[in-house]
C-alpha cells in the first residue's frame, strides 16, 4: 500500500501532562480511516499534532513518504479541518476555495477553473459569490471541504466533522464525505460517534489510553474487539467472565462448547445484543433469567435479563415481555468472541 500517513510511536502532551504516549498508525492513499475515541481521549490533539499545530514530544510523523515531524504546518501536506468550518469571513465562497491556490501562485485562470470544479463537486456552485455568513451549516462544511481539497494535500484531517450538526445536516455532510474519494489523499476522520465510524470508515482506529488500541474494518472491530476495554467503549453489552478449558467456555452460566482457535485460560466472552434471542417454543433455551429492564431503542428494542450473577442484553421479541417475566435465552455460539483476561473495563 502507498502510505499517505505513517505515525511511529508518536507522543504528544496535553498541555504540560503526558497525553498520547505511543501512537502508531498508517493510512494509505485514497483510504478513509476513522479515528474513534471517547471525548477527551486526545483525538483533536492527535490531529493537530499531525498537522503541526501541536508539538510532537516523541516519535515521528511521515506524510506522503516524507518525515515532517519538525516541519511547520504550511509545508506538511496535511490539511486540518476544525469541527466548525473555519471559513474566512472576509472572503466569499470562491475566494475561500481559491485561498490555498493563491498562496501557491497558481495562474488566475487555472484557479478560476479549479474553483468551479471543486464547488461543483461538493454541489455548491451557485454559492460562489456568497459570504460565509450567508451559508447554512451544511453548506459551510461543503465549502470547507472544497477548500481543503484545493490545497491538494497528502492527508485530510477532519476533526469531528459531524459533531455540531443536527440530524438532517449530519446526513447531508455524511453523504458529501462518503462521496469524496481522493485517489492521492488519505483521510483521517476523528469522531466519537459509532454510527459515523461505521458509515465513513474503510478502517477504524480506536484510540484508548493514549495509544491506538486496535485498527480494523468496522465490521471486524465490532465482531472481534481486541480488548474488553474496546468492547466496553464500542458499547457491546454482553461480557461474561470465565475460563476456556477442554474445548468449552465455563462460566457461572454453565459450560458452552467452543471450537476453533480459542485462547485457553481466563477469558471474557464478548457478544452483541443480536447474538442473544428469546427462545420460542421450538428452540432450546440455553439459559433462563428474569427481565429486569426494557430498552426502548428506536430501531432495535432490547431487554435486560438477569441470569443469576450475569446480566445479558437480548433483542426484544414481539410482544415485548413485561418486567419480572422469566424468559429463556438462546445465545448464538458462532458470534461469541473470546478476549483473553478478565473484565476490568
Amino acid at each position, binding site marked *: 500500500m502507498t502510505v499517505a500517513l505513517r505515525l511511529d510511536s508518536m507522543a504528544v502532551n496535553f498541555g504540560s501532562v503526558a497525553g498520547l504516549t505511543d501512537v502508531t498508525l498508517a493510512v494509505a492513499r485514497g483510504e478513509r480511516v476513522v479515528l474513534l475515541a471517547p471525548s477527551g481521549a486526545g483525538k483533536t490533539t492527535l490531529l*493537530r499534532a499531525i498537522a*503541526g499545530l501541536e508539538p510532537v514530544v516523541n516519535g515521528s510523523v511521515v506524510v506522503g513518504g516524507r518525515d515532517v515531524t519538525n516541519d511547520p504546518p504550511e509545508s506538511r501536506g496535511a490539511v486540518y*479541518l476544525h469541527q466548525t468550518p*473555519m*471559513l*474566512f469571513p472576509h472572503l466569499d465562497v470562491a475566494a475561500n476555495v481559491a485561498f490555498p491556490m493563491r498562496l501557491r501562485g497558481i495562474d488566475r485562470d487555472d484557479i478560476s477553473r479549479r474553483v468551479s470544479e471543486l464547488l461543483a463537486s461538493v454541489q455548491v456552485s451557485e454559492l460562489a459569490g456568497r*459570504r460565509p455568513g450567508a451559508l447554512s451549516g451544511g453548506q459551510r462544511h461543503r465549502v470547507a471541504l472544497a477548500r481543503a481539497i484545493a490545497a491538494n494535500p497528502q492527508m485530510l484531517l477532519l476533526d469531528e466533522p459531524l459533531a455540531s450538526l443536527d440530524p438532517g445536516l449530519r446526513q447531508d455532510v455524511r453523504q458529501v464525505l462518503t462521496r469524496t474519494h481522493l485517489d492521492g489523499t488519505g483521510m483521517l476522520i476523528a469522531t466519537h460517534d459509532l454510527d459515523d465510524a461505521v458509515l465513513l470508515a474503510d478502517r477504524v482506529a480506536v484510540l484508548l489510553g493514549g495509544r491506538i488500541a486496535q485498527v480494523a474494518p468496522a465490521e471486524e472491530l465490532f465482531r472481534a474487539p481486541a480488548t474488553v476495554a474496546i468492547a466496553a467503549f464500542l458499547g457491546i453489552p454482553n461480557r461474561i467472565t470465565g475460563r476456556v478449558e477442554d474445548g468449552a467456555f465455563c462460566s457461572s452460566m454453565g459450560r458452552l462448547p467452543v471450537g476453533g482457535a480459542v485462547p485457553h485460560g481466563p477469558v471474557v466472552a464478548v457478544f452483541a445484543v443480536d447474538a442473544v434471542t428469546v427462545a420460542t417454543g421450538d428452540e432450546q433455551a440455553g439459559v433462563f433469567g428474569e427481565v429486569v429492564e426494557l430498552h426502548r431503542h428506536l430501531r432495535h428494542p432490547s431487554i435486560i435479563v438477569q441470569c443469576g450473577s450475569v446480566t445479558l442484553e437480548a433483542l426484544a421479541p414481539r410482544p415485548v415481555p413485561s418486567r419480572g417475566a422469566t424468559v429463556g435465552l438462546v445465545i448464538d455460539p458462532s458470534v461469541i468472541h473470546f478476549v483473553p483476561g478478565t473484565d476490568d473495563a
Partner: protein
Amino acid sequence: MTSVPAMLRRGLLPLLLLSAAMPLAILGLASIGSDWFFPALLPGTFSLASWRNVVGTGALLGPALLASAALALATGLAAMVFGAFAGSAIAAATGWRRVIGAGAAFLPVAAPPVALATGLHATLLGAGLGSSIVGVFVAHVVPACGYTTLYFLGIFTVREGGHEDAARTLGAGRFDVLRRVTIPMMHRELLEALLLGAIVSWGQVALTLVAGGGSVRTLPLEVIDYLVAGQDQLAATGSLLLVIPPLAAFGLMRLALRNVELVLP
C-alpha cells in the same frame, strides 16, 4: 400599560441626547459670540474673529490643530501596532508571565498623567528628546500603548485562532496568515485601537506640557492658555476643534465598517 422601566428608558434617551448636544451648542454659540453674560440666553454680539485664528495669518489654533492631529495619528498608529503584538503575546502567556504582562500594560493607564509625565521627563531629557515633538510623541505613546495593549489583551484572550490554524495547514506561512487572514479579519479592531490611541494623544495636557517644555504647542495647551487669559471666544473655538475631529473620526469609522461582517465560526 407601559412599565416604569420602559418609561424610564424612553425618557433617558432624549436626556442623553440633550446632555451630548447642549455643551456642543453652547460651545458653538460661544465661539461666534462675545459679551455673553448671565442670565442672557444668547451672546450680545456675534463675530467670526476666533475662527480666523484657525486659518488666518498669524493664527495659533491652526498650527496647534495640525500638531495635535499629526501627534494623534502617529500615536494611534504606533499604539495600534504595539498593542496588537503585546496584547496577543500577553494573551498567549500563562502564569506569572501573563500577570506581569497585564500589570505592565495597566500601569501607564492607571498612573495619573502628571506622575507619568514626571517619570518620563527625566528619561526624555536623558535621551536628548526634551522639548521636542518626538519627545512628546514618545510621552503620548506610553499611555496609549497601555490602553491598546489592554484592549487587544481582551480580544486575544477570547479569540481562538482557528482561522489562522486553518490558513497555516492550507499552506500559509506566518506572514501570509498575518496579511491575508488576521489583519483583514481584525480590521475593525485595528481601526478601533488606532482611534483609541489617537484619542489618548489628542486630549493630553500634562504629558505634552512636561515633555514638550512649552515649545510644542498642541490644541489642548492653546485652549488652556486662552481660558487662563480670559479669551473665552477663542477657548470655545479651540474646544470645538477638540471635540469635532474625534466625533468625525468615530462617525467615519462606523460608516466604513457598516458592511463588515462579523462571522463566528
